[in-house]
């Protein structure tokens, strides 16, 4: 008899077993041909019979959680067409022909090369070190008192180490639940890259705000970062590194990113004004820059007063 393949789907790697016998049983009892150690599966759940004419006959043996064959809950089900999908409790299985085509092989993150950024554990260590250095620089540039090591350590621990650790842990837990694997190295590298990029872009956004004399650049940066970049980066990670399917990876990325997106929306003055259209504070351009690059021309006091006459009062809220 031509061997067929039984595929048992699991959260991690699926189980595959070839069989060429005319009869095969699946269930939780240890004298089955294929043992399914799931509490929702009966000791003897399904029997598969193969006939000479190529027909495959499936028999439901379960009283509790009866089996489904190709989505139908029949006591017996016969077919000659493969694949056949079987549901036993919460276990999904398929009978496949031996010549079933498999999906194309996906590249390892970093192409499997140890020279690649994603390919060597040292990259994670170096990037973490760089993040701590950037965190230290952030402390240096935002402290205005005499230097104290203990203040630096507290700041870097609180602002950099804790943030990165929290993100790595959350993403690791997601990955463990999704594909039953730990990818600490890849997650650490990805989070560290995002942290560095955020630091760089936030400085750039501030300079652009000064350049254009408009808070819109920061609003766009914040919204773009949390609504577009973070979901895109998580999708990229789930699809290209974790190798989830595109739809699943994208949906999951949206789910993971949504708390940040909601926070970004709630804290964005432009969006806020759409929901709560009153602010008793004067939201004017407070930012200053040592580069002092701006597109607005420097005007005389007279011209300023002349232009200021056109300033209308703000909108009344409903």
């Amino acid at each position, binding site marked *: 008899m031509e061997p067929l393949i039984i595929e048992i789907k699991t959260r991690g790697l699926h189980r595959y077993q070839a069989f060429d016998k005319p009869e095969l049983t699946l269930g939780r009892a240890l004298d089955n041909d294929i043992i399914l150690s799931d509490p929702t599966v009966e000791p003897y759940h399904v029997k598969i019979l193969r006939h000479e004419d190529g027909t495959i006959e499936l028999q439901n043996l379960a009283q509790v959680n009866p089996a489904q064959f190709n989505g139908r809950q029949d006591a017996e089900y016969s077919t000659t067409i493969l694949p056949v999908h079987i549901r036993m409790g919460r276990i999904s299985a398929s009978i496949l022909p031996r010549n079933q085509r498999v999906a194309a092989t996906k590249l390892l993150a970093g192409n499997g090369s140890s020279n690649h950024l994603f390919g060597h554990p040292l990259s994670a260590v170096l990037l973490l070190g760089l993040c701590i250095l950037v965190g230290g620089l952030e402390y240096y540039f935002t*402290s*205005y*008192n005499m230097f104290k090591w203990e203040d630096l350590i507290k700041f870097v621990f609180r602002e950099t180490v804790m943030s990165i650790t929290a993100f790595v842990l959350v993403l690791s837990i997601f990955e463990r639940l999704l594909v039953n694997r730990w990818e600490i190295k890849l997650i650490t590298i990805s989070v560290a890259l995002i942290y560095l990029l955020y630091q760089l872009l936030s400085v750039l956004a501030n300079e652009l705000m000064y350049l254009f004399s408009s808070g819109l650049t920061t609003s766009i940066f914040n919204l773009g970062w949390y609504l577009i970049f973070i979901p895109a980066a998580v999708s990229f990670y789930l699809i290209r590194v974790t190798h989830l399917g595109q739809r699943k990876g994208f949906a999951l990325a949206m789910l993971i990113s949504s708390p940040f997106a909601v926070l970004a929306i709630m804290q964005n003055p432009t969006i806020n004004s759409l929901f709560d259209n009153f602010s008793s504070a004067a939201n004017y*351009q407070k930012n*200053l820059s040592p580069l002092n690059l701006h597109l607005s021309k*420097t005007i005389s*006091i007279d011209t300023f007063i002349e232009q*200021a006459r056109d300033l209308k009062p*703000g909108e009344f*809220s409903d």
Partner: protein
Amino acid sequence: MKPGICLLITLLMLWFQPASALESKNIYELYEDSIFQIRVLNRETGKKSSIGSGFIVDDGFHIATNFHVISTIILEPELFYITYQTKNGREGELQLVAMDVAHDLALLVSDENLGKAIVTADLPPKGAPVFAMGNPLDLGLSLAVGTNGGILNQTDDSRILFSGSLNPGMSGGPTFNEDGKVIGINVATARNDISFIVPSRFLNELIASSANSSPESTNELVTEVAAQLIAYEQSYIKDVLAEDWPSVQLRQLSVPGTISPTVRCWDNSAKLKANALFKRYQIRCANQNHVYLDDANKFVGELIYEYYWLESEELNPVRFYNLYEKLNKDQIENHLSQEEVSNFNCDTWFVDVSGEEFKANLCRREYVEYEGLSDVLFTAALTGHSNQGFFITFIMTGTDFEASLPLVQKFLENIAWNP
């Protein structure tokens, strides 16, 4: 000396003594029938919304009180009405005839003659005894003795300092001199024995301007309040602009100092930590002639300006500017809600001031009920210096936006950079 002769001499001395000043008990007895409790009542509940005092003036039909005592009726004239109550409990309704919002005065009229009007007089010399009467805390008519502290120029001459104790409920009551004439109207208190009186000349002006006036139309009350405030602000700004502004040296800048007698300036520099790598100096100036508007908005007519100088030799430009940006914020109080004011609308300019570049912001919002009345916020921060920063915050509340701009202009023109 024989006792009979002593008695004769004493009697003769008393007989030839010049006419003496009235004592507090005389004043109380003379005027207790001419001073009333003024009440604003809710038509629906019949209960008091606010109370104060008032006294008979002019022809016996009119009562003077403070604007803030009866201001509840301005926004809701259909719901509230004004009454008086005599010491004997007699009550009657009053109508608003005229008001002077800037000086916190209101003139009310009754359908019937209320009694003997009290006449006014000029202010006695500083230190002379004066007597304030009113109904403190709804406890009945009372008299507070104090002395005249003179007219306060920091209040735009609109207040007399009274070294007696005024309490809530006495607002609108008269303050007498020793001759039993009204020199002013009780208006406010700051703390123990520091109280304020509106000079009676403003009451006389109000009475004169209201001659032949009929009671104010309730529909136009809000418009009238806004118009009076705008007119007062325009006049006040005009006076401030007419002054010669003294300069104050703040490190490398010479800036306007006390630009009006109504303004007081204080050093507001916060104490720095011993390990701070920078120095900062702050001056805060504010006027004292605030105007009561209503329960929600409280006081308007504020003029506040602050200077903030920042310098450091230790901080590099990036660190310095991070600090500079962090400190660059306005001090406007934001207790008003959307029921009272609009949002601020702001715009940004880069302005050349004395050869130095400033990043300037001007913001403006309007009052919901009082058309034409605005809050103005102006800020300007020095740019282009790697380790020196300076910013101004300039705030005017309840003002005329157009009228405030020349003030901003003169302010900037009076800033000079001394290299």
